[in-house]
């Protein structure tokens, strides 16, 4: 059943009441989370007003803050864009952490191998290397899923663990900086070739080329997903494996492609984390998060908040990045343990994602017509309201 024009008109005119509630629901949710956070701050003897002022200031309050937020958002955006690709093909990529690490390692290795190449050659080269490293780490679970029916949640989580050990081995062994001044070496590389430094865009800040790159990639992926045949195929496979297969699409190859591309995006994030960083080295503390800052997981949140649309992921990554950067600023201002900030981040995520229901109910209560609209096929392809882990019925 399709919706007639008359029905659409009615929804338009009568929907504003419900709209207002739904518009306020999201900020209300964020506010509720912050209120709980304020209670926690008070319990610790800190001043919530100082804290939140610092949070907003640190995230968006000055040029330095905005650039810091933008830099923080870059890996989130890249991983998020990769997630958009994967989740739309109905493949759950939880392997962002490992793919970021492999991208970082691959690009670092290249920079160490050919440090003398001039910037315009070396930078694209390391970006390519990083993307390739991440792509490999996505292709493996992709192939395992397509050809051996190994669930990708399992394989990607396991590969995260493998990537960390590869990183520990390489950074403490073949790639280690032997000129470190301490009594014994630490698992970090030497300062990488200055030719590979990502150029800073605004003098006096840390904002580097990576930010522009990430946005360009997001736009490119949006175009890929909605304006190319390959992108259409990917989305089709995501919506229904059987139908796509019946229509003659190479489903298995598409699944591998989806995970490979997602891995490549995360790999790019890894490159930028190394070459856009303040220290221009790759270093590990034995964990993945020590290098990625949990971008592999936070990127999933950013993508889902962006409705699995790369363009909206730009906005959601920026906001999430602001929350992370502002949170650190708040920690410094009110001197609470960083653990509080982590818990607060979790609260915000939970509250915001839960508020969708209130929003939906508000619309339902206000306008019975909305219910009718819900039963009809959406006007746009469903940015999955639920993350479906369904590989489709039966075996492939």
């Amino acid at each position, binding site marked *: 059943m399709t919706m007639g024009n008359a029905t659409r008109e009615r929804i338009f005119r009568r929907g504003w009441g419900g709209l207002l509630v739904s518009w306020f629901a999201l900020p209300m949710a964020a506010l509720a989370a912050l209120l709980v956070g304020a209670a*926690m701050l008070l319990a*610790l003897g800190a001043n919530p007003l100082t804290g939140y002022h610092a949070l907003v200031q640190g995230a968006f309050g000055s040029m330095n803050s905005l650039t810091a937020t933008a830099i923080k958002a870059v890996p989130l955006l890249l991983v998020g864009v990769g997630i958009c690709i994967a989740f739309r093909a109905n493949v*759950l990529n*939880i392997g962002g952490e490992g793919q970021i690490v492999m991208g970082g390692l691959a690009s670092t290795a290249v920079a160490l191998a050919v440090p003398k190449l001039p910037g315009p050659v070396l930078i694209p080269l390391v970006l390519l290397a990083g993307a390739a490293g991440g792509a490999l780490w996505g292709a493996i679970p992709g192939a*395992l899923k397509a050809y*051996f*029916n*190994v*669930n990708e*949640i*399992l*394989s990607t*989580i*396991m*590969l995260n*663990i*493998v990537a*960390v*050990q*590869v990183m*520990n*081995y390489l950074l*403490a*062994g073949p790639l280690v900086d032997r000129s470190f001044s301490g009594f014994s070496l630490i698992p970090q590389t030497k300062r990488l070739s200055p030719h590979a430094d990502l150029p800073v865009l605004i003098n006096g800040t840390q904002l580097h080329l990576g930010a522009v790159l990430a946005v360009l990639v997001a736009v490119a992926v949006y175009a890929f997903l909605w304006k190319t045949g390959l992108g259409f195929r990917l989305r089709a496979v995501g919506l229904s494996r059987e139908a796509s297969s019946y229509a003659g699409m190479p489903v298995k190859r598409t699944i591998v492609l989806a995970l490979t591309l997602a891995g490549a995006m995360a790999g790019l994030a890894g490159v930028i984390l190394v070459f856009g960083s303040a220290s221009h080295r790759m270093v590990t503390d034995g964990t993945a998060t020590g290098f990625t800052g949990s971008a592999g*997981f936070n990127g*999933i*949140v950013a993508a*889902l*908040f962006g409705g699995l649309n790369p363009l909206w992921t730009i906005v959601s990554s920026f906001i999430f990045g602001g929350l992370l950067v502002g949170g650190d600023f708040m920690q410094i201002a009110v001197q609470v*343990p960083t*653990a*509080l*900030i*982590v*818990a*607060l*981040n*979790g*609260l*915000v*995520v*939970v509250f915001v*994602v*839960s508020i*969708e*229901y*209130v929003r*939906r109910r508000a619309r339902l209560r206000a306008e019975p017509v909305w219910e009718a609209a*819900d*039963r009809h096929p959406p006007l746009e392809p469903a940015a999955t*309201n*639920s*993350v*479906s*882990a*369904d*590989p489709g*019925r*039966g*075996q492939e």
Partner: protein
Amino acid sequence: MSRFLTITILTATVASGIRLATPFLLASLGETMGQRSGVLNLGVDGIMLLGAFGAYYTALHTHDLWLAVLVGILIGVVMGLITAVISVTLKAEQGISGIGVYLFGLGMSDLLFQKLVGTPVPISSLPTLKIPLVGTIPGLGKMFFQANLLVYVAFLLVPVLAFVLNRTTYGTNIKAVGENPAAADSLGVNVARIRYSTVILGSGLAGLGGAALAIQLGIFQSNLTQGAGFIAVALVYFGAWRPLGVMGGSLLYGMVAATVLTWKTLGIIPQSASDLAAMAPAVLTVVALVVVASRFRQPAALAKPYQRGG
């Protein structure tokens, strides 16, 4: 290698593998129940951490280990209730809400630990329970029948949950809700109630897993679980949503980790390969799954919130 193949070392390694597997097993069994009914809970690690801290703190102040275990379970139950509200009633995106719960659990457990305890203080561990008769079998007795009570509970839960899933009405309802909630609903099954129950049960088990870990180690530290909750989720897929398979996966993971540790201690794994060896449990789990080539498919309604009429 000859040093490894002695009775003492072998029994110690197997016992170690079982101990390492227990927290995974508990959390993974819980997650299996939830996923079988169609709810994906990625926040397991956070719930384990909160349960672990709760148990630790209780043990620290009351010196009553059983009360500590109870507190751990209760915390899991409360978190399960919250998770159920978010995922089932509020029909939120289960992938995100899980990560949110994980972050909250990670941060909150660490924060409470820093503020309420400060410098770590040890608690007593559960005593080893030797099962009469079988426990005295040389070799095997030490391997399997001389562990603490929580280990036994974990492994006993496997047949219990398998029985519940396969031979009770409740279990049938769970499976129906996980495969086709609309059909189940039309047959009079209360989808929400079933999902609430499995999520609460699952989280309770996760809390128990965390408590088991804290009590087993006799201490708490920031991020005590080190991602065990995520591995537990992964193992559900390995086990094809069946308690027996999940047990197999947990044991595989635990045994490989224990063997790697023993081989490092014995020098069978040279220092230079130390890092590469540490990835063995992960690699072998994936390889095992490829070889076994699972014939089972997942619950069709997994991670899809159910709305009547929708």
